């Protein structure tokens, strides 16, 4: 393998590791949230630091690669995409950390258990995990023919968030002070998941730029 290819291979490997860690973080945040498991929440906060450190390392590697190899064409698109995707993944890990703090707080545990099914959180998580996994596979195979269908999944998340907002606001007048506070916290939690969906959408756009050399930004 030529040195250039070796460097790119290592860069891809590092991003792939980060990606897998973030998928696992999202999966485990669901477990922590649904079971009120504070141990998992602690673990999520610890691993978030690892994700941050991988992001810094990828950044450094990309800077070095650009400085030393002056990439063009597909190599340039790859290195730019790797930098941007790692940034999106790091933000997803940040949102997961936010969810971990929500779980650790234990303040609204009972409220959340009561409402989680009606708010459709399970579906939100399934959709996000599907987006993250599908994009990771596309990155591995360097083949993305289902970009549009992945992008549309972000719309599902937005619809579910609107529905959750509507459900909780409809019931707001029946809530006591504690429940109002928890309803607000739950909506903030939803916002974190919705933003995660946005980042997944951005990742798809990056993949299309890398693999097909097309820009989907602000087009779908």
């Amino acid at each position, binding site marked *: 393998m*030529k040195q*250039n*290819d070796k460097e790119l291979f290592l860069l891809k490997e590092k991003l792939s590791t980060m990606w897998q860690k973030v998928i696992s973080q999202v999966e485990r945040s669901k477990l922590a949230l649904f079971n009120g498991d504070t141990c998992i929440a602690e673990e999520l906060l610890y691993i978030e630091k690892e994700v941050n450190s991988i992001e810094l390392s990828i950044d450094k590697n990309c800077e070095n690669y650009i400085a030393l190899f*002056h*990439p*063009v*064409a*597909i*190599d*340039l*698109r790859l290195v730019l995409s790797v930098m941007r995707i790692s940034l999106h993944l790091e933000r997803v890990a940040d949102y997961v950390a936010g969810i971990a703090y929500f779980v650790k707080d234990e303040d609204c545990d009972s409220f959340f258990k009561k409402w989680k099914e009606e708010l459709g959180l399970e579906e939100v998580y399934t959709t996000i995990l599907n987006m993250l996994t599908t994009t990771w596979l596309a990155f591995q195979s360097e083949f993305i023919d289902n970009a549009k269908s992945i992008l549309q999944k972000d719309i599902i998340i937005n619809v579910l968030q609107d529905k959750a907002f509507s459900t909780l606001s409809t019931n707001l007048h029946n809530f006591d002070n504690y429940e109002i506070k928890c309803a607000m916290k739950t909506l903030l939690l939803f916002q974190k998941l919705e933003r995660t969906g946005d980042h997944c959408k951005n990742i798809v756009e990056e993949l299309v730029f890398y693999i097909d*050399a097309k820009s989907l930004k602000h087009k779908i």
Partner: protein
Amino acid sequence: MIKAKDVHFYYGDFHALKGVNIEIKEKTVTALIGPSGCGKSTFLRLFNRMNDLIDNTRIEGQCIVDNKDIYSKSIDVDTLRKNVGMVFQKPTPFPKTIYENIAYGLKINGYKDKRKISDIVEKSLKDAALWEEVKDKLQQSAFQLSGGQQQRLCIARALAVSPKVLLMDEPASALDPISTSKIEELIYTLKKEYTIVVVTHNMQQAARISDNTAFFMMGELVEYNDTKKMFLNPEKEITQNYITGRFG
């Protein structure tokens, strides 16, 4: 401005260019890239008929500069070479003073007015971004200049006779990074007035200085495209393999 229509070129039996078609727009910089022996320098030299100086060569097809087929019998080669200047890989100053290097071309083109010649020398040196460095030593030998300065002197010499086209065959390959940067800046400035075609082996240089890039391989023009497109998303896989260093 410059066109090649189904151009074939032969060195004896060797088929060096195979049906090249290209149209180069006025006042743009076009980079010719490709592996050694792919025909890019041969192609460049067609446009001021430098290949005529090589024995046993033959051309088919049409090379058009300013709507004229430059290989037609009515073309005066000296006039053509005045209109289509050339800069080579290694600086080639004459063994004369800096002033005489520029003035020489003017004198053989019939200029006699010393004042006018001096004005053109100054303008050419200014256009070649060399004036400030040599204005106080115009009577010194051109060989006393650094390599980068000599190359800019050669560019000034080509500019002095008011060409429309400048052909450059790896003009910075023998220069250090600072001189290279000056030549690149100069090319960028000169494209406002001249049509420039540059052969280069330096991919980054091609990307930096050119508006369009032509990729040659084994005598064929494989891809000719906007430089940004070429270096971000070339149409042909073989172009991508070449510019990313995965060739061969």
